[in-house]
């Protein structure tokens, strides 16, 4: 062959190769608005025989897509250039599957939003043909016949389970109107397909089951619900319902008390870390956070994880928001492992919680870790948070409205952490603090002019904070001050704080209000504005000044701004003599015919420019009608005040005594005290080991008072003293009225705290909105994937299904589009 011929052939070959190598490796899944994913065993056109697939709802495409979990590629349609489309009624949102346990194909059902496409009907179960390669909707099971008396037939939740004794499969349908329906499926021996029972069983629950989860035994269902769950005795419980739905209705229903309503639920047997104990030599168990309960999985306790409903959790409710742990064995919340709170602290999530799932170690392969140093022959899985790899028993995956899915280390009771809690610059700490004087001390026109007494911190608190031999004294130096705040891992959050002398209460500063002179001769002040409406809507409450959560105390200073008789801006200040609270009965509080729907503050009458202007009430005998006058109202603490941006009012420190914002049993508390301790509840459980020896303090640098990161402690604590600005090391006597008079109003110690926590999450590499109902999947049974770690598949509304493993990093997330 000539050189030209060889060159020509080479060119053609290169062109052909180039032509073959361009373009994507696959046609893509082409999801349009996926909302849910389930696994099922079935037959498809992809290959012969029964095998597992993933079904994904494409809500905007009005179809299902089928994905092969082994290669994460879609099953193709007949044309082989598009993924298979399984058309459904408009807006498929929910999926469920169940095995009939007979070696045949699973039942797979899908529910679309509202009607089945026919305007006449209500929702239907659309049953997918999983038993032949012609994957399509095989038949429908109408659910409109189960409409409640009020006509409600909205499908809230869906779950498939296998009936015992080879009786087939059952699909449970949570319905609005507080009902649960069941449709049974059996095998049609003639076709190999499934057939639905002619009757749909329905039970009235009395609560809406918005999410369902099946226990590992496959016989009990847990239902999250925002409604009170009726229990015997005419009472109700907020939390998760238990339903035993495998028999004929009525199905037994019970309740797990979560202290708050719930929105999503997951369940599994979970092996947890041990607490550890010291040995005879006084050595603590340094390995405890990494050692798990022994024994087979089957003896581990069934634990139910439920995301609380944001409507009724948080610092003003009985429990903080997040994911709680419930024990069916006790019917309530799991106990606090350190015996402080009456329950295990919820695992906090950012945003509004969504669906959850639980990942187990794979069934086989090297990713099923059986040779962990501290846990030989106990199946564990690797996790890879930013703070370092670690083995654990179970990982919770929780979706959030912020477009992320958060990873929870269920074996260690809390969220995974991407940063170091106890070490490095990220650790829980006070990174900044200083003592500041207001600018008014420099203003000759101010009453604060020339005052020189400032706030400082004592160096004898917290324990061991000062080096041995240090003379007890007070500190102003901003480089030293941070070391004299006590923080506690698991409690202290990132926040901006301020200790202020006679500061204004956080929600009671500069508010629109009224003042009125009463028939009793004093003055009542309220933070409310006239709306011009009649009746109960006549006043817009600016602040419920009578509410103890806001922290007003008798003796505080009520400051009024007004315009004096000459038309000039003026102000008055008077001590608060009494707080008028709205009656608990809900009756309207009124003083001299003026309604005070948010409560009020009583102060003495005065001769200042604002108070003296208040018109006298018109009285007839003992009955008076007062005349409210609009004003600006500020309530200032009479002494020291602790506030934060996140928590608002945080209490009243006193001079020369430690002040700790710390949780205490809530049972017998009320008012302000209850409000404060609720703000100081534990947020999470640290997983760093205790100091090596019993009684040893300060093994972690920066925490000289700390023996065990897991131990309870204050959210923040400190001891405030006084110094003269010119003599910073000499403490002043805080009982000396002259010293107190020398403190300028608004003298303060502002400081910051950081939590040491950055929760581990996963999200798509690009985009990522609206994570939906996800799935954990073990691929170790597939050839070529024997050693794969457990994976999670999470649908996102922006047309992608992500696949990730908690054993891999954030950068290893795969998006299937």
């Amino acid at each position, binding site marked *: 062959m000539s050189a030209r011929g060889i060159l020509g052939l080479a060119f053609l070959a290169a062109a052909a190769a180039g032509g073959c190598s361009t373009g994507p490796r696959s046609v893509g899944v082409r999801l349009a608005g996926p909302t849910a994913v389930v696994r099922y065993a079935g037959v498809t056109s992809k290959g012969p025989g029964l095998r597992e697939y993933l079904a994904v709802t494409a809500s905007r495409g009005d179809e299902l897509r089928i994905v092969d979990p082994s290669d994460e590629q879609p099953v193709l349609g007949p044309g082989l250039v598009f993924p298979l489309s399984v058309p459904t009624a408009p807006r498929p949102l929910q999926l469920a599957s169940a095995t009939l346990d007979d070696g045949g194909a699973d039942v797979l059902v899908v529910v679309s*939003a*509202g*009607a089945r496409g*026919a305007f006449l009907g209500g929702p239907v179960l659309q049953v997918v043909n999983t038993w032949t390669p012609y994957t399509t909707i095989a038949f429908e099971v109408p659910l409109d016949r189960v409409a409640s008396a009020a006509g409600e037939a909205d499908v809230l939740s869906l779950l498939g389970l296998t009936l015992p004794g080879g009786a087939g499969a059952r699909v449970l349908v949570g319905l609005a109107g507080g009902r649960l329906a069941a449709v049974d499926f059996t095998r049609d021996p003639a076709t190999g397909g499934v057939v639905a029972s002619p009757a749909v069983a329905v039970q009235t629950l009395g609560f809406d089951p918005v999410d369902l989860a099946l226990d590992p035994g496959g016989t009990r269902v847990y239902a999250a619900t925002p409604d009170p769950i009726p229990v015997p005795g005419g009472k109700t419980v907020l939390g998760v319902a238990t339903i035993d739905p495998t028999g004929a209705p009525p199905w037994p229903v019970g309740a797990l008390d979560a202290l708050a309503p719930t929105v999503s639920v997951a369940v599994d047997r979970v092996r947890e870390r041990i607490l550890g104990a010291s040995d005879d030599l006084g050595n603590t168990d340094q390995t405890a956070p990494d050692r798990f309960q022994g024994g087979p999985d089957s003896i581990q306790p069934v634990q139910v994880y439920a995301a609380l409903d944001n409507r009724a959790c948080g610092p003003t409710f009985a429990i903080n928001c997040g994911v709680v742990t419930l024990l069916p064995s006790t019917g309530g919340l799991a106990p606090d492992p350190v015996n402080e709170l009456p329950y295990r602290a919820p695992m906090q999530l950012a*945003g509004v919680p969504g669906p959850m799932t639980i990942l187990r170690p794979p069934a086989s392969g090297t990713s099923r870790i059986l040779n962990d140093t501290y846990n030989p022959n106990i199946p564990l899985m690797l996790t890879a948070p930013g703070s370092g790899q670690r083995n654990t028993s179970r990982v919770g995956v929780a979706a959030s409205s912020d477009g992320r899915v958060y990873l929870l280390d269920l074996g260690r009771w809390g969220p995974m952490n991407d940063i170091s809690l106890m070490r490095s610059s990220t650790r829980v700490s006070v990174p900044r603090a200083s003592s500041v004087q207001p600018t008014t001390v420099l203003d000759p026109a101010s009453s604060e002019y020339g005052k020189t007494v400032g706030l400082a911190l004592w160096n004898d608190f917290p324990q061991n904070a000062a080096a041995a031999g240090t003379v007890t004294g007070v500190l102003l130096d901003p480089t030293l001050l941070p070391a004299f705040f006590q923080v506690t891992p698991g409690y202290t959050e990132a926040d901006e704080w301020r200790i202020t002398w006679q500061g204004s209460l956080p929600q009671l500063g500069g508010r629109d209000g009224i003042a009125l002179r009463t028939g009793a001769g004093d003055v009542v002040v309220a933070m409310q504005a006239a709306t011009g409406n009649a009746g109960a*809507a006549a006043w*817009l*409450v600016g602040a419920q000044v009578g509410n103890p959560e806001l922290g007003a105390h008798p003796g505080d200073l009520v400051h009024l701004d007004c315009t004096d008789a000459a038309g000039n801006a003026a102000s008055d200040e008077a001590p608060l003599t009494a707080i008028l609270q709205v009656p608990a009965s809900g009756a309207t509080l009124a003083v001299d015919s003026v309604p005070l729907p948010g409560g009020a503050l009583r102060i003495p009458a005065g001769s200042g420019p604002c108070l003296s202007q208040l018109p006298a009430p018109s009285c007839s005998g003992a009955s008076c009608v007062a005349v409210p006058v609009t004003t600006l109202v500020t309530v200032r603490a009479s002494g020291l005040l602790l506030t934060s941006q996140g928590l608002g009012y945080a209490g009243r420190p006193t001079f020369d005594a430690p002040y700790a914002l710390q949780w205490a049993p809530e049972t017998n508390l009320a008012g302000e005290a209850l409000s404060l301790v609720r703000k100081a509840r534990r947020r999470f459980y640290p997983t760093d080991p205790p100091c090596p020896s019993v009684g040893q303090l300060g093994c972690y640098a920066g925490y000289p008072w700390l023996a065990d990161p897991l131990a309870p402690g204050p959210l923040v604590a400190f001891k405030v003293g006084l110094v003269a600005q010119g003599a910073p090391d000499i403490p002043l006597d805080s009982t000396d009225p002259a010293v107190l008079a020398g403190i300028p109003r608004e003298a303060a110690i502002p400081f910051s705290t950081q939590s040491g926590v950055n929760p581990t999450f996963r999200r798509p590499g690009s985009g990522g*909105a*609206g994570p939906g109902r996800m799935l954990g999947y073990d691929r170790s049974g597939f050839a070529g994937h024997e050693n794969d770690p457990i994976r999670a598949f999470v649908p996102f509304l922006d047309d992608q299904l992500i696949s990730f493993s908690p054993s891999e990093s954030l950068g290893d997330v795969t998006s299937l589009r």
Partner: protein
Amino acid sequence: MSKHTFLPVLLALAGALACGDAPLSTPPPEDRFYFPTGLTLRHVPAGCLGGAPGCQTQLLVASSNFDLRYDAANGGSLLAVDVEATLAGAGSNATSPLSPVVLGGTRIGSFAGEIALADPTTCPGWSGPAQALVASRSQNTLYKVTLGDDGALTCGAGCALPLAGSLADPYGVTVACGNFPVAQGEPPTPRQLAFVTYLRTPGGEGWLSQLDLADPGAPRRELDFQISPTHSTVFDPVTTRLFVTSRFAGVGFSPLRWIELATPDRLPTTVNLFDVVRGAELRGLALSTDRTRAYAALRIYDVDLATSIGGRPSNDLAGALAVLDLTPLPGGPPSARVLRVVPLDKGATEVRVIPRPPAAAGAEQPRDLVAVTSGDDATVTIYDDQAGAIVKVFATCGVGPAGASGAPTPCDPGNPLLGRQPFGLAVEPRANGLQRLYVGSFDRSWVNVIDLDPARPESAPVLRADGAPAWWRIGAERP
């Protein structure tokens, strides 16, 4: 240049000028809608219930002249349509869409926005003839169109109010009437106010114009809402709170803000929804009938892309409906805590509450249904706030194994049931206990009229006595 070269250039120039079209000033049509935006309803006599004997439902539709086919400056229109009379012509032989029975119409500027109605039902104390308020983005003008009881529309002297010259694209209009102080510290006095939002402002600032409807001579007042332009407003007459949604101004800030008319001169209170829904941008807003919740339509953009390009990406990732808690906190304002985030299709825009019928004595009043238009995906979603679930999506024609959807023709398979780009939305409680949903298709230029049973919204539309679905389209399809 020589004479020989100059001449051809001159000739070419003359030729070019000869071929140029004169500027169009075609008036907008008076018998059809054209890229409709705002919808609202009026009942005559005021306060009557739609469908009750003697009650006329007037549908007011603002057409935007979006493609400037008609007069560029004043090619928009506002038409009043007699709904019952229009639907009465919908026999079995009637062609669909139905021709509207137009009671009156008037020209307005192009690129119209939302419509607000000022009459005794929407504005206590209103004594004059009813007015429809609608802003034109092209003219930067608010039109105060006088409505006759017979549906005649008049835009006479004083009808067109120029808005703030330094601001652009006025869009949302809300009427707020009640007793409010004029300034801080003053006693409340009867006032009739209108607030106008601006989609485009210098520096991405948020501004509202406040106009005094009772005193046209009173100076317009501009309210500064700081960063993020305003989109829509909703007024709660009981608390006097005016809620304001906002558009994109930068990554990380998606504010829902409110002011209280009972306490003027106060800075707006702000809640940043970005913290809860990453990439959220607000659009429409509605309050629940018990005023304890707000429903905000969100468009969700790609934050990473927005960060890299330094602006709002043109495409959305998804839509959502945020359900916010408006119950007051001890400190005064509502927490506006997000209780739920409901996934929606792309392009979520308008939100309306569909009230539930009153519960039986002793029974708990069920929460509202909420309708949202999603223009980009051409759908309307109905969310049930009692069940916390989406109960109905009006999506596409002829898809699904069960066949028909009840939509009128034309409804070719694959086409949107409601017509492309559903946008304007209105809800009418009916005397028969049903709720009537009005959905404008911006692209097709018709308005869907759909009756639904609030107890069974998933089965919408309901069936009429003759067995036909209660779903009509009004307005000729745009060619």
